[in-house]
Each structure stands twice: as structure tokens, then as C-alpha cells.
């Protein structure tokens, strides 16, 4: 097991060994117009997240006291200094939205990385462990899944204290059982196949069997789950922020922005509309991409 980290890194690039695989994947993925569109939006989202400091016209926390609740430029009273208007304390909406992409991206990446890494390891272990260990692990996962995800995340944040980091920890904990179940299920179905037996007969150790023989063949559902939980993570983090249990003001996180905007909903539609629209577009793009990934990985399911 000591060599686990370096062996685990290898399956990430199966295309080295089978050059046709990526091309085949792309061939199927490209066919799905929605998925390709989602991919472009997602690339744009990542670009904004990385470059927010450079493209944002203003500092996201700077308060322009003469421009409170100024509407977007196309409405009466708006101007081009603040393209999408300002919020109740005079901060530029556009700049805050652009910086918000950074937080959502950050949440998605960290949550998916933590929950997928942890979940895949536990699932892989459960698939290879003796039956009683497997049973215990799966029961623990059942227990976590018995709680509605948002409720468990809320309670975890109540224990840890409200902040974006703690919200991410809570969401990662809540999402991780899905990876465990998925990985374990594919490991169990792969384990009994001939190529695994062959590897075992030729003397492959348990570590090699786990990470080099079996894991790469279990990856496609995990990748799809990764895409889907990326969007779940963004949604849940925004929901926690909205409930006041995620990122704290004045952080320009989309959910937190919505929470701050709640009292102005009937006076200034733009402070409410844009942050939610940003969440919706991002999540929609990722879900479109996830659907495309699923279809591309599993041509059997393509007809549905």
C-alpha cells in the first residue's frame, strides 16, 4: 500500500496506452450538441473564475455610496459605469458576480476532489475487503444517506461554525457515500471478470490489483458522478450561503448575495435576478456536460 500514491496517479491517463480511447470518447461526446454547448459555457465559467481580478470593472467589495441600488444600464437611471447595476450598499453587481464564479468554482473543485478521492478509496477498499468489513462500511454509508443531504450539511455546519470552508467540508461528507457505492458496485462486478483473475494468477499484489487492474475500468461512472456532484456542490453551497450558513458577507458568493438581496426583492429586481441566474446557468451547463459524458461513456444508454 506504500506505493499507492504513485500507482494511483497512473490510471488518470489511460489514453497513453490506448490512443484511440479519447478520440472515441470525443466522437460520441461531440454528437450531443447540448453537451458541447455546456462544455463551452463551463470553459467560459472557468475562465471567468480564474481571471475575475482582471476582467471585473470594480473591486467587488468597494461601496459606491452615491450609487445605491442603481439599476442596470438599459433601465432608466442606470449607466455604463455599473453595467448590471449596484446592490443596496453600492457595490458593483457585475464585479461581484464575476468574483462569485471564483467561489463557486473553488467549491466545486474542492468538494469533488475531496469527496471523490475519499469515496473512491473507501469504495475500492470495501470492494476488496472481507465481507464483514464491507458490510460495516456500507451500513455507515446508508446512515449518512438516511439524512436529507441539505439537512445533514446544515447540522454539520452548525457544529463546525458557519463559513465557506466548513460548508465545503459538510457538502463533501454528504456527497461522498455516492462515490463509495458507485465504486464498490463497479469493483464487485469487475472483480469476478477473467482479466482480474488472470492478473491475480500472474502474481499481482493486492495494491496492484486494486489501483492498476480494477480501478481504471471503474472510472467512467465515477467521472460522470464527478460532473454531477460538481453541480450539486455549487447548488448546496449556494443554498447554505442563502440560509446564512455558508460564505459570510461581504463575500461575493452567489448564494450569500441572494440572501443579502432578499429584502429588496420588490424594489430592485436586479439584485435578486442576476446571482440566481448565474447559479442556474453554471449548474445547467455542468449538468448538460454530465449528461453528455454519461452518454459518451456508455453507448448502450445512448438511445434514451
Amino acid at each position, binding site marked *: 500500500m506504500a506505493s499507492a500514491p504513485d500507482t494511483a496517479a497512473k490510471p488518470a491517463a489511460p489514453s497513453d496506452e490506448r490512443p484511440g480511447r479519447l478520440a472515441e470518447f470525443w466522437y460520441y461526446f461531440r454528437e450531443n450538441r*447540448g453537451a458541447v454547448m455546456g462544455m463551452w459555457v463551463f470553459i467560459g465559467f472557468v475562465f471567468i473564475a480564474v481571471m475575475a481580478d482582471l476582467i471585473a470593472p470594480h473591486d467587488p467589495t468597494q461601496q459606491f455610496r452615491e450609487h445605491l441600488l442603481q439599476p442596470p444600464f438599459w433601465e432608466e437611471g442606470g449607466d455604463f459605469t455599473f453595467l448590471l447595476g449596484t446592490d443596496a450598499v453600492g457595490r458593483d453587481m457585475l464585479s461581484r458576480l464575476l468574483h462569485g464564479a471564483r467561489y463557486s468554482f473553488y467549491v466545486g473543485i474542492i468538494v469533488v476532489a475531496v469527496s471523490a478521492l475519499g469515496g473512491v478509496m473507501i469504495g475500492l477498499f470495501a470492494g476488496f475487503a472481507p465481507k464483514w468489513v464491507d458490510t460495516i462500511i456500507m*451500513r*455507515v454509508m*446508508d*446512515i449518512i*444517506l*438516511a*439524512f*436529507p*443531504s*441539505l*439537512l*445533514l450539511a*446544515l*447540522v454539520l455546519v*452548525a*457544529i*463546525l*461554525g458557519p463559513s465557506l470552508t466548513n460548508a465545503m467540508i459538510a457538502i463533501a461528507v454528504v456527497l461522498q457515500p455516492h462515490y463509495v457505492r458507485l465504486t464498490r458496485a463497479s469493483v464487485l462486478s469487475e472483480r469476478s471478470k477473467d482479466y482480474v483473475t488472470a492478473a491475480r494468477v500472474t502474481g499481482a499484489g493486492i495494491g496492484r490489483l486494486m489501483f492498476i487492474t480494477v480501478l481504471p475500468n471503474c472510472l467512467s461512472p465515477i467521472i460522470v458522478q464527478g460532473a454531477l456532484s460538481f*453541480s450539486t456542490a455549487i*447548488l448546496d453551497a*449556494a*443554498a447554505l450561503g*442563502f*440560509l*446564512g*450558513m455558508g460564505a459570510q458577507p461581504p463575500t461575493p458568493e452567489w*448564494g450569500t448575495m*441572494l440572501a443579502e438581496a*432578499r429584502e429588496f*426583492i*420588490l424594489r430592485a*429586481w436586479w439584485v*435578486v*435576478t442576476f*446571482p*440566481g*441566474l448565474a*447559479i*442556474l446557468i453554471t*449548474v*445547467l451547463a455542468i*449538468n*448538460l456536460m454530465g*449528461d453528455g459524458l454519461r452518454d459518451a461513456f456508455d453507448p448502450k444508454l445512448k*438511445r*434514451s
Partner: protein
Amino acid sequence: MLKYLFSRLLTFLPTFFGVTLIAFSFIRLLPGDPIIVMAGERGVSPERYAELVKQFGFDRPLITQYGDYLWGVVHGNLGQSFVTKKPVWDEFFALFPATLELSLCAMIFAVALGLPAGVIAAVNRGKFFDRALMSTALVGYSMPIFWWALLLIIVVSGWLGLTPVSGRMSLMFYFDTPTGFMLIDSLLSGQKGAFWSAVHHLILPTIVLGTIPLAVIARQTRSAMLEVLSEDYIRTARAKGLAPARVNGVHALRNALIPVITVIGLSVGTLLAGAILTETIFSWPGIGKWMVDSIFRRDYPVVQGGLLLIAVMVMIVNLTVDVLYGYINPKIRKR
């Protein structure tokens, strides 16, 4: 069938104990002294502190504490709320009908629209209707429902002035609530307009809470229908000259319903998670809002008890769905 039922129950029990363990550890996991934390900024006198330590049994060994807790749980004793001093159990079941009413309406809304949408999409596969419906479903599926709620409030309540913004009933009416379901109680009260007020208050929360289940059901129905439509017996039914409506509606839909029903059953957890947001936004006096308020009020016995009751409820529903599914589909039992 009995054996299957038994094996399902056998997995239920350890999960139940695990859930109680999590609920039990909740108060003890809070950083710092739980009593000081619960007292908050007001502080607590030494006498009251000693009293509370005794009340919670913090002076005894952990395992005894857990035993006592479990004993209390199976006897319906979940402790008292700090704020209202009422038993958590009573509070939960006083508020539960509100959540149940909202969830049922949301589910009816989701099924009533989702099922036909899925069938229409599947029958018109690849055509305009299919694409339009499935794109809409994906948008619904990706919707941050708390924002959706705010948008609906802006447009329907604000601009159009059609529905109220919060609560379950207009303050003009006052009557007893024997069942806890506003729709039924308002009818029983016999007061003119009370029922319409209840309906008006329900519309927006129902749409908000039902949106994601609606999208899920539409997507699931479509893929289940497509699966069934490619079966041989459908071809037979078509070949022998049955009307397309009968083939789609009777032969196909019936068999496509099984996975759809499972999805409906298993979305109870999602519904309750959605209820947390929906009830908070619409000030709907149900258990979702109650949980959020309790977390903010540091009313930890309520959080602990509510957490346990909600989890057990989700587990019971999932178990029931599993067992029913095994009953409908004998193939499942064999696994």
C-alpha cells in the same frame, strides 16, 4: 417474500442505531461545553449549570448516556426545547402536518405534470416536443429553488399581486385545526373564503417544492418509456392493430411505471431537503423552517430530535418503497 422482508428489516435496524448514534453525538460534538454554547450570550448561573449537567446526564459515562438516550427515543422522549420548554416530540408532530400537506401537494403537482410530459417526450422522441420538454426538465433539474422562489414572489406576488408571500392562512380567518391540514380544516370550519385563502397560500410553495421532483419524474418517465417501447410485446401490440394511444397509454406506460414509482418514493429525502428552503422562504410553519430556526436559536435538543425523526422517517419510506418494489417485481427479491 417473507425472507426478503426479513432481510430488509435486518439492514434497517443497524442503520437505525447508527442514526440514533449520530443524533446522540450531535450535542456532544459541538465545540466547547455544550451547555455554555447553548446558553449563548446570556450566560448561565452556576446553579442552573449544575442543574443542566444533571438534566442531560453529562456527569455520567458516555455509554450510559447513550443507553438512556436510546431508551428515551424508543419511548418517544426526545427531550425538551430550550425555547418553548415543550417536548420535541410534540412540537414535531404539531408542525409535521404543514410539511406533509405541502409535500403531498408538491408531489401531486410533480406527478400530474411530470408523467404526461415524460410520456409525450418519449412518444415524440427526437422531435420538437421531446427536445423542448427535456430542455425544460433539465433547467428545472438545475434550478436553485431558493432563487426560483424569489423570482416567483417578484412576478406572481409582486407584479401581478395574485398570491400572498408567506404563511398558510390569511389572518382574517381563525378556526380550530383538528387535522393540521389547512385545506381540510378550512373546509371544516365552514368560513367563506378560508379554503381559497389556503389554496392561494399553497400555490407558490407547491410549485417551488415540486419543481425538482417534476423534472426528475419527467426525465425518468421518458427513459423508462423508451426502454419499454422497444420491447417485443409493444411491437406485437402495434402489429395487431391496437390504437397508438392504447399501446402507449396502457401497454407501455403501465410497465414503465415501476421505475418511476421507485423514483417518486425515493425522492422523499429530496423533498424534505427542499422543504427546508421552501418553508424558510415562504415562512411556512413546518418542520423544515422549525429545524432552520432551531439551528439559529441554538435550540439543540430540537435540532437533535428533529434530525433523528426526519432521518427515521426517510428510512421508513425507503424501506416501504423497497419492500413494495420487491413485491411488484419478484426479480429484485432474488438478489
